[in-house]
């Protein structure tokens, strides 16, 4: 029964802060952090459980049958995901206690975090698709509120709006997909879904791709990836929790849920291939863009896009244990990416909100603990042997090698790029000389901020090992280590990327690669965002203006206006006979109409 507490505690915390504790920011922060910690403990107590029988109640029903249920499913996959959500969540709360200590809207911030924890828990534990959609929208709301936390800043307000609207485009397809799957299987409950025989591949493939639209929006895959880099306008701990470790991975989790429920064998190969290539292209594109970003958070954001691309690619491979591998990468990525984001938060905090890496430099000496933990995160992200990232990346390489050689090459290239841009980041930020006053004055952050970094660094190393992963991520199929093609590819990619980063960026004062059109294209996000802005500006706005004009002119002026003019002429005729004022007309009309009814019925 205490699965319900996982859902209720953060909700109660958010409600209590909003309704009563807003004035007491410190208490609000403690309550929110306490509720996160309590859910983490509850999750740890649930480890090893596998409650297939869902606990549910009817939320909207008709004709005695439930239409929409609220119910929980607490299986291995859900508990594993909950561990990521509450584990990273708790550490982010703790980090925020210091990071947001002097924020004037601290209570609102923690209220938002609790609302997020509630919504995310709902997605993870949902036993049916509509409930998942409900919480899917609510994480969208929490993300909107937290990106726009500093709403008086126009760029933050715009980023919040963009995130919500772009996600809704994905939700359009997602809702259609849910409806189609409901019509096909006759149920919304994950555990009861069975695909009937005799359906055309077209219908099945279309259904899968419609559902996948939801993941494209939430997990920021191309072409809807544009909101995630902008979302970095939110406070950095929010970026760590929502826009790196958990919410953006919800799309992957949702697709994994679908595959676990109905299997991927039934879906035609063109549909799963589409998913794999969307992930692959996102992964490559984002890695290329990351090489030329100068904002530390933007580099990490593109890296998140790229890693999400890996997970989506793995879902689409639809071969062997691909779904589990995708979830496994989600799990390892959550720790090391949250570590990197919180590390960047510590750096930004120490450098007085400077985010440009070229104005940092030499921070290794100033902030050694942050630097060491950041180095651990960087190694894990690069997939360095003995770290968690190595294990999950190894499996991705292994699986793609045996199913699709083109994807294998793509994954390897992205792995090399990853080491390259992370090497660049690390060298520019931590090595060399201080390149600005802010970095010269930087000092190690408070212990309360270091604690989450150290704990996450421990997870970044050990979460992939069998003795940790088996109890925490039981659906993970451990592949014994073999020194074969995937291993050598992986090592080669790391060496190549690291060497490149060292050659180009060691002891440099500015980016030596930035002055050519290719780099400029990467720096400008391949001009995709600009293109969308133009499309929205001239497309939607012009369309809306044209329609508005036509609406006023044709529909209003000619078609119906003509009708109105006839009636007006009649009315004036009527008016001349009577007093001519509007009041009398209305009154007479009312009475007249009643009279007409009466007479017509009576005379007949």
């Amino acid at each position, binding site marked *: 029964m205490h699965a319900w507490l996982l859902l209720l505690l953060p909700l109660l915390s958010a409600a209590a802060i909003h309704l009563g504790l807003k004035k007491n920011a410190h208490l609000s922060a403690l309550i929110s952090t306490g509720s996160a910690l309590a859910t983490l403990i509850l999750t740890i107590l649930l480890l090893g459980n596998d409650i297939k029988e869902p606990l549910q109640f*009817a*939320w*909207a*029903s*008709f*004709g*005695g*049958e439930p*239409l*929409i249920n609220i119910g929980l499913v607490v299986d291995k996959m859900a508990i594993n995901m909950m561990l990521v959500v509450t584990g990273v969540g708790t550490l982010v709360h703790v980090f925020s206690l210091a990071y947001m200590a002097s924020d004037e809207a601290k209570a609102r911030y923690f209220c938002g975090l609790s609302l997020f924890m509630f919504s995310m828990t709902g997605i993870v534990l949902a036993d049916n698709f*509509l409930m998942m*959609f*409900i919480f899917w*929208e*609510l994480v969208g*709301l929490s993300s909107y509120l937290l990106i*726009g936390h500093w*709403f*008086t*800043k126009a760029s933050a*307000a*715009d980023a*919040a*709006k963009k995130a*919500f*609207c772009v996600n*809704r485009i994905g*939700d*359009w397809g997602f*809702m259609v997909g849910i*409806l*189609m799957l*409901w*019509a*096909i299987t006759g149920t919304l409950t994950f555990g009861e879904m069975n695909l009937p025989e*005799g*359906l055309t591949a077209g219908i099945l493939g279309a259904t899968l791709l419609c559902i996948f639209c939801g993941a494209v929006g939430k997990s920021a895959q191309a072409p809807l990836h544009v909101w995630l880099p902008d979302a970095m306008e939110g406070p950095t701990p929010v970026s760590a929790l929502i826009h790196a470790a958990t919410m953006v991975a919800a799309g992957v989790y949702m697709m994994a849920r679908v595959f676990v429920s109905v299997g991927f064998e039934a879906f035609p190969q063109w549909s799963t291939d589409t998913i794999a290539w969307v992930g692959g292209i996102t992964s490559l594109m984002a890695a290329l863009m990351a090489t030329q970003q100068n904002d530390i958070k933007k580099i990490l954001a593109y890296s998140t896009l790229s890693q999400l691309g890996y997970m989506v690619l793995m879902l689409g491979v639809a071969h062997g244990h691909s779904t589990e591998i995708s979830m496994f990468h989600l799990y390892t990525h959550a720790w090391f990416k949250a570590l990197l984001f919180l590390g960047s938060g510590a750096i930004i905090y120490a450098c007085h909100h400077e985010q440009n890496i070229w104005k940092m430099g030499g921070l290794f000496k100033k902030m050694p603990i942050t630097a060491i933990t950041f180095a651990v995160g960087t190694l894990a992200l690069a997939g360095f042997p003995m770290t968690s990232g190595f294990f999950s990346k190894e499996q991705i390489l292994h699986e793609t090698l045996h199913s699709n050689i083109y994807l294998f090459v793509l994954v390897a290239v992205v792995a090399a790029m990853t080491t390259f841009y992370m090497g660049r980041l690390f060298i520019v930020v931590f090595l060399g000389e201080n390149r600005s006053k802010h970095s010269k004055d930087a000092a190690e952050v408070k212990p309360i901020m270091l604690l989450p970094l150290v704990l996450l660094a421990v997870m970044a190393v050990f979460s992939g090992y069998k003795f940790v992963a088996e109890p925490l991520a039981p659906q993970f199929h451990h592949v014994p280590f073999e020194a074969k093609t995937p291993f050598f590819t992986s090592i080669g990619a790391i060496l190549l990327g690291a060497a490149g980063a060292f050659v180009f960026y060691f002891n440099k004062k500015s980016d030596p690669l930035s002055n050519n059109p290719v780099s400029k294209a990467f720096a400008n996000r391949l001009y995709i965002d600009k293109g969308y802005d133009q499309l929205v500006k001239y497309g*939607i706005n012009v369309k*809306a203006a044209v*329609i*508005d004009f036509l*609406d006023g002119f044709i*529909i209003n002026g000619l078609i*119906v206006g003509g009708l*109105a003019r006839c*009636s*007006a002429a009649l009315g004036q005729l009527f008016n001349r006979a009577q007093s001519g004022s*509007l*009041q009398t*007309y*209305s009154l007479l*009309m*009312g009475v007249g*109409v*009643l009279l*007409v*009814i009466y007479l017509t*019925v*009576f005379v*007949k």
Partner: protein
Amino acid sequence: MIDQTLILLLAIPLVALVAIIAGGPARNIALMASVGNFGIALVTSIVWTQVAAPEQLGAFELIVLAKPQITLALGLPDAMAVIMMLLTTLVPIAAVLAGKCPEGRERLWFSSVLLISLGALGAFLSTDLFFFYAFHELALIPTFLMIGMLGKGDRKAAAWKITIYLAFGSIVLLAGLLWLVAATESPSLLFKDILAGQVDSGDQIGIAALLLVGFGVLVSLFPFHSWAAPAYASAPTPVAMLHAGVLKKFGLYGLLRLFPLVPEGMQHWLVALVVLLLGNILWVGMVTINQKRLDSMLANSSVMHMGYVFLAIAALIAAGSTDANNIALPAAVVLMFGHGVSIALLFALSDRIESKTGSLRMEELGGLAKSAPGLAFLFGLAGMASIGLPGLANFAGEAAVFLSGFKNWDAGQPLGAVQIATIIAIFGVVISAIYMLRAVRNIFHAAPVKLTESAEDLNMSEKIPALILAAALLVVGLYPNILFNLFNPTAEAVEPEVSLVEAP
């Protein structure tokens, strides 16, 4: 059978009206009457779910004319009537409290509010076609008068436009209703007699067309919608709240009641209806995006959202009236409730924004959340409700409407008109997110500007009407079964009821 409950709901505002005209304190009388009415309605609804023969609860019948039989008949035949009764007694409380009455016009202002609520309530409670129609006409008169006399901007033009459009709609509707009554050869104008009748398929197409156009004009069905935006933008706040929130639902209510009589006719016009409702969602949605003023944006958004209720009606028509288990009916009614409450709240808050900043032009505003966080929170909540955020009432209705669109789709078959319409209609969630978040962004976010930096937040007396409506959105949103369950008479209640009614 005579029972006082429902007639009391009409008598209270009537007595209050007389008291106001006689010179009593208008605002207080109107407030007491509307609070009292809501209390009675709430208790009645709770009792309605418990009794053995709910359709007889509070039923009132007084034969006004013997031949043809016209009866002043009130009753709560089904959940739809109960939910509309709740909506129609809830919104007037907020309407009385919201908006600022010009000096010296209290009697006109508050008696109009009472008269509109009285008319709307009469229409939804009537179980006789004559009074159903007549009460709605009664409510329209003060609506026109208030826009014409106390509206803002180009009020005369707006008043003329709504008067002419709605008079046109009413007359088309009247023709349809008369034809319908003639075709069913009903012995009286009571709904139960009319609904027991049969309509020849020859008459059905014509009657269905007249009903769709007549009711459609009243609900601003595309392309008969262009009266709505100027009228709501110009109308005094309580009138906009009452018409957009409550009275406009008359047309939808009428269609939901009467379409089962002309199923073949409605089937004939199904594709046309689908095209028109997509006009509401896409065309008017685009028009909404292009609005520069908050009041006309809200007015257009209200027109747009009618498309979703029409989608539920289309799903019902496509399924045929025999499908008693169709979720489209409760879906439509829950959405009507959610929309009514949320649009009334939005109009009330838009009035507050104008009175505090002096402008509703979105480009002139900004940063209001800094100086008025309470106002920003309530507006955000109402806006999120209207764009279908789960946890607030509208979502439950919208989601059920979408489900109803796919309810009868056989996955082996190609998509039908209703499924295609549903898919396109869901794109409306993108459109509504764009215009609502744009409004929030432009009015409340970014750095405060001259008009907003010293604006005051809502005070307690301004917050109360908003909180009442917000609470309704939250209650239904968090547990929609509170309304959906009204459509599921429990087994215990159904069984004895049947035997009681049939044993004379």
